[in-house]
């Protein structure tokens, strides 16, 4: 097991380097960069050189990649071209917001999706199963930004149950930390539902098909033949094996959550990583773009690794060497 983990960790390195090289190439091939925004056609050549120097653009691209890589490994993500502040300083306050949103959405998906899948599987072809299946199809097919707009229209504008925008009201001063957290949670209810919808539907579909498979296996028939109650058979015997594929899905779900967060944050005006990244793209602020992309790529790789490890931990039949 330990050699397996080490080998998998080592495999991540070339893939991660490959991604950063491709990203760097694409940025290199692009017309113009953030320094273009500061260049005036009437400037003298030495003034332009000065701007290039200030943005660290005077080295050839090949060298700059290795400079970037070295600095990143030391935790220095460079200076934002737009704000002239370290990228880490700009992104640090965004990360907790995005992570909170992603975690809430994930919990929402798990708490709703898995029980719904179990109900579906244990009552195959019943009314409950059919309607849940339809719901999951809708959940997979509804574009998240459209779903978000519908929720805003109904629950924020019509009913006024939830706020329309952002994560806190600037005019509201919470009396204590708990009230502040509740205030933020209230803002995050709709984004959580939008971001969690796809996961809910996916977890439900996977739980249903995996439970159906397990329920038809021999050991479940044995358990029933022993005269165990249906509850014990399903929740004690079937569920343990039925959930193994779902556990592997958790790791793979991390990149989808982060990708979805980009869209969700821009609909609901949440100041998180996604919105910052879109702003950075529009301004060609390459250090921020590189940082966010590599961070998300790293999370994707980490997710795949976590999946494999969880799989091994959950299923003792799986042996790695």
């Amino acid at each position, binding site marked *: 097991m330990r050699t397996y983990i080490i080998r998998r960790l080592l495999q991540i390195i070339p893939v991660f380097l490959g991604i950063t090289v491709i990203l760097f190439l694409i940025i290199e091939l692009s017309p113009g960069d953030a320094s273009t925004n500061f260049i005036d056609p009437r400037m003298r050549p030495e003034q332009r050189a000065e701007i290039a120097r200030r943005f660290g653009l005077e080295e050839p691209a090949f060298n700059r990649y290795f400079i970037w890589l070295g600095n990143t490994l030391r935790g220095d993500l460079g200076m934002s071209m737009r704000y002239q502040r370290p990228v880490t300083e700009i992104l640090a306050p965004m990360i907790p917001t995005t992570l909170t949103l992603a975690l809430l959405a994930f919990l929402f998906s798990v708490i709703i999706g898995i029980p719904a899948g179990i109900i579906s599987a244990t009552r195959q072809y019943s009314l409950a199963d059919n309607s849940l299946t339809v719901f999951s*199809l809708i959940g997979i097919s509804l574009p998240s930004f459209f779903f978000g707009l519908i929720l805003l229209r109904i629950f924020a*504008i019509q009913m006024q149950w939830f706020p329309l925008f952002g994560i806190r009201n600037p005019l509201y001063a919470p009396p204590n930390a708990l009230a502040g957290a509740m205030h933020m949670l209230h803002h995050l209810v709709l984004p959580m539902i939008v971001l969690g919808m796809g996961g809910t539907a996916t977890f439900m579909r996977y739980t249903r098909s995996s439970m159906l498979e397990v329920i038809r296996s021999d050991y479940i028939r044995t358990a029933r033949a022993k005269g165990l109650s249906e509850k014990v058979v399903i929740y004690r015997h079937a569920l343990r094996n039925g959930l193994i594929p779902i556990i592997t899905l958790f790791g793979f779900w991390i990149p989808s959550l982060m990708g979805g967060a980009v869209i969700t944050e821009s609909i609901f005006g949440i100041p998180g990583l996604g919105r910052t990244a879109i702003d950075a*793209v529009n301004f060609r602020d390459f250090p921020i773009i590189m940082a966010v992309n590599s961070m998300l790529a790293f*999370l994707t790789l980490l997710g795949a690794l976590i999946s494999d490890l969880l799989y091994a931990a959950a299923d003792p039949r799986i042996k790695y060497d």
Partner: protein
Amino acid sequence: MSNAENAVVKVKKVKKESELSYWGSVFFRFRKKKMSMFCLILMTLIVLGCIFVPIISPHTITSTNVANMNQPPSMTHILGTDELGRDLFIRFFHGGRISLGIALVVVVIECVIGVILGCIAGFYGKLIDTIIMRICEILMSFPFIMFCITVVGIFGNSIPILIFVLVFLGWAGIARIVRGQILSLRELEYMEACEALGISDIKRIFKHLLPNVLAYVIVFATLGMASVILVETALSFLGLGVAPPTPTWGNMIQPANQFIVLSTRWWIWVPPGVGIFLSVMCFNIVGDGLRDAIDPKMKR
């Protein structure tokens, strides 16, 4: 109707299926699911509408009319008009043309690339397999949405760039599926016979191996249409896909970012959303139905 008569009918049907060709029996099984059939028909209607409505409509997509802005649906303008007085009914179908068209082009190109590289990797194995699969692994670890946003944002909103980035990241999925299938097919006896007969590699791959993986490719392509439509419309909605005035279902929803449109002018942003939803759902259900029909072992 007696039970015996029913049984006879059933036997007849079963006999009929066994007489059908491979694809004939796939369609026979597909047709038995009402939901899949219904979605196939709905999908065909949407596609036909997108092709023909812009041709026969009296309005054009660009003709603006300042005297006729933000009108709710009426007899002359079935889905109303937008903030420039353009007819939204024809823009809806024209947007569908662009959204579905982009998805089709992306899926076809990524299937061609993915199938060729997947076949090569699976057939030849060894070093070339390792290289292709390692590239696939890198591409599949890309942060999908963020990377699309980055590329489109940097190189500018244009349809070719959007297609390029979606294909660039998309072909790895089908390449892996094809490679896996070829790996197991390669070991079968008929391939040994091919080798003994001295058939060339290219003929062995494309004439003897490929037909056996075609079913998987078709299922992948159908489900792929659904996911490409979702990504393209999301990017266009964010302003990082197809740029206005070219309508797509994605950028037609963009005006809903304004409070006034979201709260009072539903006819501007709801129909394109419904268009996306319906076509994505149809492709998903048809894809699922095809998978069950092609691989009866999977059927429950």
